[in-house]
Each structure stands twice: as C-alpha cells, then as structure tokens.
C-alpha cells in the first residue's frame, strides 16, 4: 500500500484537479468565471481521466504525448472535437 499526501506528480495533480474543478460547493460569486471555460477544462480533464480507453477504441488518441491536450489548437476546433468526443464517450 502506498500513501501520498502531497508533492507533485501527474497522479497528485489529477487528484487535485478533479476535486477542485469538479467537486466542492458551487457558489456563484460577483465575478463569474466563464463556466464554459471551466467546463471545457473539466471535460479535458475527464477525457484524460475517464474516457481514454473508449476514445482509443475509436482510434482517437490526440491527447497522447501531451497530457494537457491540444495546446496549440484553435479554440473552436477544440470545442468541436470535444463535443464529438463527449457524445461518443457518453459524457454529459
């Protein structure tokens, strides 16, 4: 059994991201984060975390080699791609 309480590494980062961006109490403050953007990142995270196997079965592996995905892509292109992937992977 391993224990980790902090300090770097992709697994630790994924643990933190999935909690802070996707869990916790949602409260709308005065300054609204564009939820689309946050959701986009959360979806990116989810794709990375959850649906990689499904996506790979479909021959989609564009995130491979770049754990933070599509950095150089145009935004609309990325969103379109995400939409297609979400539908295919059954993420709501």
């Amino acid at each position, binding site marked *: 059994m391993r224990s980790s309480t902090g300090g770097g590494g992709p697994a630790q980062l994924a643990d933190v991201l999935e909690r802070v961006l996707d869990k916790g109490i949602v409260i709308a403050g005065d300054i609204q984060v564009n939820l689309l953007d946050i959701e986009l*990142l959360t979806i990116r995270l989810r794709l990375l975390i959850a649906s990689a196997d499904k996506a790979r079965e479909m021959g989609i592996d564009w995130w491979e080699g770049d754990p933070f995905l599509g950095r150089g892509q145009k935004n609309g292109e990325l969103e379109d791609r995400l939409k297609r992937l979400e539908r295919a992977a059954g993420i709501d």
Partner: protein
Amino acid sequence: MASSRTGSSVWSVPPASTDAWYVYGVVPKGTSPDVFANAGAEIELVETGELTAVASRVPLEEYGAEALEANVKHPEWLEEKVNAHNAVLAAGVGVTTVLPFRFGAIYRDEEQVRGMLTKRPELRDALARLDGAVELGVKALLDPEVLRARLAHDRGLDAEVGSGRAYMLWKQLERELDEEVRSFAGSCADESHERLAAAADDARVNPAQHPSVAGGEMLLNGAYLVRSDRDAAFRDVLRELQARYGDDGVTYELTGPWPPYNFVGDEEQA
C-alpha cells in the same frame, strides 16, 4: 485593469477597489487565523454568524471577469491556482471542519462575502453534518502483467512458445487470460469499494484516471468520508485488501486526508 480602448470611462468598480476577494471555502466561527498561517497564501477570515469564510484578496488584473476568462484557459495558470486553492483548505483539515468551495467563488469586496454567508444558512447544516470528518482517497491500480503471469503459472503454463501447435494453444490461452483479467478487475473493484464504503460514513466512486496519469490500470478511484474515530478501522480494511490482492498485482494508494470535496455537492449546490 486596462483602460478602455475607445477612451471613454468604463470603470465598473470604484478605482480604489483594485482587489477582489477569492473564497476557498467555509469553516466554523471562531477558527483561529493560525490554522492558515502556513497555507501558502495571505488569508483573510470573514466571520458572520456561525460561519467563517476563508478568503484571500486577489488582484482584479488577474481575477477580473475578462482576465479570469483568459487565465483559466492556460493550464499552467489554472494548475497553480488550483493547487493553491487546495493547499489553503488542506491546512484546515484535521484541525477544524472545512467546507470546500469549487474553484472560482470571487467577490467584489468583504461585504459581498458576508452577504454570501448570510444568504446560505445551509452551510451551517453542512458544517454540522461533516463535523470531525475528512475525505480519504483510495485508488486501486492493477499491473495486468503480474496478474497474467500468476494466472498462467496457476495453470502450469510458463512454457515458451515452440511448435505451431503450441503457438495456437498460446493464442487461446492469451484470450482466456484477457477474459480472466477483465473479470478479476471488476470483482476486485467491487469488493474493494464495498468493504471500504462499509468502513466509512459515506462513499463515492469517481471515473478511473487515465493510465498515463495513474501509473497503471486504475480499477477503483474512490472517495470516502471518514470520521476520526473510524480512521484506524478504515486503514485496517485497506491493509487487508492490500494483503489479499497484492499478489494479484494490485496496489492500493491512499491519498489525503482531503477536505470533503466529494461530499458537499448536490444539496448545497446553487
């Protein structure tokens, strides 16, 4: 904040107010500022009634609506802020009860933070419900090769491929082993979660993380709400699972204690 390109005055906030208030979460009233002394950020505690907001002043040039919209698109920026968010809340874990907010609760000033606290009496109930509890993460990772070697060995089939007939047999064995590995993965995940959930006060299963992130094939990505008086028993269950499934190639990883991120959703949502 940049001035208007057209030259007309578009300040939507008083010029003196160059800060916003970023709220990480809520703790009970009377919580000492010392709790957050080493949290890695300058913390302001805003107390109203039974509740204390844990906040920081943040520059509008970074957290104003436009800037924020641009900033959250940068993974490096977001990573840093998300890590900082968690570090602040983690400082309170085990010391007091922490209600973690999701990233991005930002207010114009202290009064607005107070207003939020007074408008949300349900936060009090959540504090009471989560009193003395922390979240523990348990990930079960499988090394399929270890399991396959063991399954093959159990059948007395360590032999190398030789003749064509041996090759055909080997291919068939491979398929059978694939099936057995899948079946094992499902039952091991189910049993692990059931036993851990029984030792916890509440439990959630989250999607498995990608192997390149997780460092193996993740069978289980669980979150467990554990009160301090059950902590030792929970860890015992985890040790038992490790003892039982370790030889099959399963490694359990315990993370946390975390603020109870996975146990404040739903009923408290806006």
